């Protein structure tokens, strides 16, 4: 028996209200008198903190319930009801959404605090926090929604905030274009999502289009429709979570401020796709083919992104490709039906990736917005707190035991092995090695060796406490979060059980093989990175494959030539050629016909009265003939 909890609606509402208040304050005061930054900062943190407190309350409430009925619902109001389509603005808190909510609000709060320092001096300070609060509210709607349509509201909402925040420094065309790209590519994914929802609705949605009803009715789905729905929903996920072929927006998204990259493009928004697959585990568990496709797309994305990450020179781009790569791992996890493993990696990744981004932000801030790693170096003595926390994050990312990344990544690889997906496992191990390589390449080049740009180095100093304290808290999470799902004990997996449709495999032998392979991959990657970069390397010149990878296999250029330019060309063609000559030609033709016929008749109007007299005579004669005939 579910319990109703009216406070569930407040969880997304607080940040949304914060966004409205801050936004209105900013819009009405920014050109006249400026409010103090501290005021905005404080106001901005109210929403996330309150949501976090409520999330904790939900956690304790859920723990008090027995596992079979471990969920709380709240139906705020009927959103729209047309015939068989009945959608409520409802919220569902079960173990899965509770876990997501907790780390979203926690990391969200930390990043808000961090931003108070990072964004200092910016002239649109209020606007930034309004957008950030709006984002957090949308993300919470996404996670807490009780049905796919409410999730879609949050889905699009986070897409909107992503657009607004990427293009935040809107004076530069590049940044706004990056924002446009993100929104449009996301929308392409959303098209798939909406189509999937439509098919799902017409098949089983009439008895209720929320997760609980769908789960109850899923057995009535015909297999072909189920596969179609699964794949279409996954298309939406590739857009939102940057998988092949729609990952191209994420590296460009680094044009936004670093806290944005940390929150949206590392910890929360991009994981929405993984959350969606896990949420629909009752559907995906039925269609093994869909899962396999997802897993392969995921692991190939992981591979591709890792290759790109190995050659980038912008610190944020390295982390961006790293995010795409790790997302690939998460999809590999949920694809092989190891949903809890995938979600666990989402959880740990949120901590260490946010940590790495915020640390990178700290470095960028210290060096006055320098982002090229080949202009950094030797910073470990100047910024010890940043250095230590980033090393912790890097160890977690690279999968070094006993940090959190090791446990989550290992769980995924083990699941791939245990379900017989050997190819995925092998690629996964290889990518793990590459991950270690590029992560430590970044660490060594930025923090070790001699400084490459002495001027910037002189002015560098450790960041203020408002920025380093969140780093430390996240580092603690990156270290200890792994223990929440220790192999064998699997606390989180058991916690998530009521929400997911999952089988657990247990094979100690395979477990050990997976662990050993992961550790070996980490060690190899670290060693190669140390060998090449540990002692102060210079910026390399790329040739051949390396150059090709540095230019990201020219995928962006390819998309531009094959999609963007033809689209614009068709637009121009329609406007200049097709419209005037093809679609308008019947209309123009009719007008011309009229004129031509008129000109033909004009010949009869000679102007000479005598000719008119002839016309009269002829006409009269014909008429009289006709009359005389008809009178007969």
């Amino acid at each position: 028996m579910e319990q109703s909890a009216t406070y569930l609606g407040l969880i997304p509402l607080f940040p949304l209200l914060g966004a409205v208040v801050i936004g209105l304050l900013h819009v009405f005061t920014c050109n006249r008198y400026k409010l103090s930054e501290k005021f905005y900062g404080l106001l901005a943190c109210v929403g996330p903190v309150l949501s976090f407190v409520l999330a904790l309350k939900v956690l304790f409430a859920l723990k008090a319930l027995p596992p079979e009925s471990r969920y709380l619902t709240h139906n705020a109001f009927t959103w729209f009801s047309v015939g068989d389509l009945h959608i409520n603005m409802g919220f569902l808190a079960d173990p899965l959404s509770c876990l997501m909510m907790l780390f979203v609000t926690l990391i969200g709060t930390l990043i808000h605090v961090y931003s108070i320092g990072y964004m200092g001096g910016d002239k649109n300070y209020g606007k930034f926090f309004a957008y950030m609060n709006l984002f957090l509210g949308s993300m919470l709607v996404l996670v807490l929604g009780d049905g796919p349509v409410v999730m879609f509201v949050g889905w699009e909402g986070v897409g909107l905030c992503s657009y607004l925040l990427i293009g935040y420094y809107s004076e530069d065309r590049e940044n706004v274009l990056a924002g446009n790209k993100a929104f449009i590519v996301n929308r392409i994914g959303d098209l798939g999502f909406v189509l999937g929802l439509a098919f799902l609705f017409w098949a089983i949605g009439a008895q209720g289009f929320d997760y609980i009803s769908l789960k109850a009715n899923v057995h009535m789905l015909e297999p072909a429709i189920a596969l179609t729905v699964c794949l279409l929903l996954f298309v939406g996920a590739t857009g939102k979570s940057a998988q092949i072929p729609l990952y191209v927006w994420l590296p460009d998204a680094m044009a936004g401020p670093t806290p944005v990259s940390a929150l949206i493009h590392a910890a929360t928004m991009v994981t929405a796709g993984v959350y969606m697959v896990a949420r629909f585990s009752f559907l995906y568990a039925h269609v093994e083919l869909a899962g396999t496709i997802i897993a392969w797309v995921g692991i190939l994305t992981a591979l591709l992104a890792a290759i790109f990450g190995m050659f980038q020179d912008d610190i944020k781009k390295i982390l961006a490709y790293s995010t795409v790569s790790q997302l690939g791992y998460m999809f590999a996890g949920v694809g092989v039906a190891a949903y809890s493993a995938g979600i666990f990696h989402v959880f740990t990744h949120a901590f260490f990736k946010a940590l790495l981004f915020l640390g990178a932000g700290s470095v960028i801030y210290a060096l006055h917005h320098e982002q090229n790693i080949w202009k950094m170096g030797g910073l470990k003595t100047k910024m010890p707190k940043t250095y230590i926390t980033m090393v912790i994050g890097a160890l977690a990312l690279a999968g070094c035991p006993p940090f959190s990344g090791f446990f989550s990544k290992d769980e995924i690889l083990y699941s791939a092995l245990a379900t017989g997906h050997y190819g995925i496992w092998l690629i996964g191990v290889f990518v793990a090695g590459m991950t270690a390589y590029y992560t430590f390449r970044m660490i060594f080049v930025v923090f070790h060796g001699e400084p490459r740009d002495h001027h910037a180095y002189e002015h560098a100093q450790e960041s203020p406490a408002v920025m380093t304290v969140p780093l430390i808290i996240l580092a603690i999470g990156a270290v200890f979060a792994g223990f929440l799902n220790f192999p064998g004990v699997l606390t989180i997996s058991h916690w998530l059980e009521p929400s997911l449709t999952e089988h657990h495999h247990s094979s100690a032998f395979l477990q050990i093989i997976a662990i050993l392979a992961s550790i070996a991959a980490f060690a190899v990657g670290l060693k190669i990175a140390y060998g090449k970069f540990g002692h102060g390397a210079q910026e390399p010149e790329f040739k051949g494959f390396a150059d090709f990878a540095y230019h990201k296999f020219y995928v962006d250029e390819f998309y531009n030539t094959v999609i963007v330019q033809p689209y614009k060309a068709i637009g121009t063609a329609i406007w200049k050629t097709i419209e005037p000559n093809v679609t308008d030609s019947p209309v123009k033709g009719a007008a011309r016909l009229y004129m031509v016929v008129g000109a033909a008749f004009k010949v009869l109007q000679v102007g000479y009265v005598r000719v008119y007299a002839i016309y009269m005579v002829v006409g009269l004669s014909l008429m009289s003939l006709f009359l005389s005939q008809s009178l007969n």
Partner: protein
Amino acid sequence: MIHNYLFLSVILFCLGIVGVISRRNVFTVFMSIELMLNAANLAFIAFSRVHESMDGHVLAMMVMAVAAAEAALALAVVILLHKHKGKLDTNVFSLLKG
């Protein structure tokens, strides 16, 4: 027997039409119109004789009166036309040309 008069009437009418159409001088056109009117008069009188009633005679009288009035107006128009263009050739007046 009456048909002789009718033939004559028709011939006169056609001659009048030909005159209206093919002559260029305005006066000749009007003379042809008068000829047409007289042809109609002849037809009326002939039929009146056949039906032995006076209706035809009455109508013929009316036609003559109308012809006289029309001639007066027409001559006034001719004077104005002459003032306007200085010529009395029907081909010259072609403002109605489309």
